[in-house]
């Protein structure tokens, strides 16, 4: 137990950082560029940690630690194969802390950014919760340890809905409305505008945890062995990269419409189908 606990905390950010590095490399190649080295995210984060601190408001600093802590808690819940529903709620709390932090600064950019982050939460939280309900209906439990059979054959609509949630959680086009991942946009860096140095680094670290966690949840849909699950997660991740590179950034109303109609619609249809035909 203790070994899993420590491994989840120590190893996860390395996987997350590596995925981010490969992400930037692949994105560059898709755009006909060479791109930064794969270890670039680690350079970035060490540099951020070594910058001097400029503090404008104090409360966000505490909330950033809370954000990181709750995401790590969610990762640990997953590693110990605990309750899926609980995990999603903990993830939700983490995001609320980040939003509260940005709301407490006076910069208009981070205010707009945190408004939009709330809209993003409205878009993906229902999908995650419905997905865990669908998994419950298949396996009879919210516990991750109870998932034994491959779920993808009966839960493929939920998988498609989760893909939409994954795009939003990875802050990729067409849904990167709260932070404008590729900066230089109308809201500067949105929700992250006011964070700098160490605190920006901590947020980045939390993202690495979050990325691995969400991919791990997707890999649950295929647990007939560990490798098919990991392959499924990496495949979904690659699809998101392609979608990111062929799409423009869209408005928030479009995001809500897509995620509610397509995402929630698919999940609910899936749940109704399971009820009617018994999976």
């Amino acid at each position, binding site marked *: 137990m203790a070994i899993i606990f420590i491994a989840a905390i120590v190893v996860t950010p390395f996987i997350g950082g590596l995925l981010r590095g490969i992400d*930037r490399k692949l994105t*560059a190649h898709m*755009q*006909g*560029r*060479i*791109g*930064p*080295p794969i270890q*670039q995210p*680690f*350079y*970035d984060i*060490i*540099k951020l940690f*070594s*910058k*001097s*601190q*400029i503090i404008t408001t104090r409360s966000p600093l505490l909330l950033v630690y809370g954000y990181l802590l709750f995401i790590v808690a969610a990762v640990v819940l997953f590693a110990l194969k605990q309750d899926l529903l609980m995990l999603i709620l903990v993830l939700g709390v983490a995001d609320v802390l980040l939003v509260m932090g940005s709301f407490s600064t006076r910069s208009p950019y981070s205010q707009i950014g945190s408004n939009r982050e709330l809209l993003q939460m409205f878009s993906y939280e229902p999908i995650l919760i419905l997905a865990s309900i669908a998994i419950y209906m298949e396996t009879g439990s919210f516990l991750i340890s109870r998932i034994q059979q491959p779920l993808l054959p009966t839960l493929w609509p939920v998988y498609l809905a989760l893909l939409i949630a994954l795009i939003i959680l990875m802050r990729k086009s067409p849904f990167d409305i709260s932070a404008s991942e590729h*900066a*230089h*946009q109308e809201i*500067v*860096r949105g929700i*992250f*505008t*006011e*964070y*700098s*140095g160490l605190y*920006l680094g901590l947020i980045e670290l939390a993202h690495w945890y979050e990325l691995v966690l969400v991919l791990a949840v997707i890999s649950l849909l295929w647990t007939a062995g560990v490798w098919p699950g990991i392959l499924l997660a990496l495949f979904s991740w690659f699809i998101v990269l392609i979608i990111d590179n062929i799409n423009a950034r869209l408005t928030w109303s479009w995001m809500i419409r897509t995620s509610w109609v397509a995402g929630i619609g698919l999940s609910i249809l899936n749940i109704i189908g399971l009820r009617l035909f018994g999976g």
Partner: protein
Amino acid sequence: MNWIARSRAKSPWLLHYDCGSCNGCDIEILACLTPLYDIERFGIVNMGNPKHADILLVTGPANHPNYRVLKNLYEQMPEPKVVVVVGSCGCTGGVFHNCPNILGGIDKVIPVDVYVPGCAAKPEAIIDGVVLALEKLKNGK
């Protein structure tokens, strides 16, 4: 220590500020981002946010209407930071040197670390200037 210096040199984030140039040099800076020059190879990212930036890239001469903005942006950047001036008019005032609204080079307002002359400066020269600035950034000034 070594790690930190290495990471600083490998991950410089840029803030580009146009202090009233003719836009010639700005277009050359944007050219650096294109696939031909691709400065993201060196980990350079154009940030557009002073609080995240390590290098302030200024084009155009210092002038009365906006030197306060320039100063403000410089002060918002966390240490260690370096300033690179791109274009002759930023270095000395250049073609604008005796206009009534012009103070002169950027160094009249904030300390400058690297001057990249040229009207307009070539993308190769801009990349050279930024790489020179990295040496200063590495040692934390």
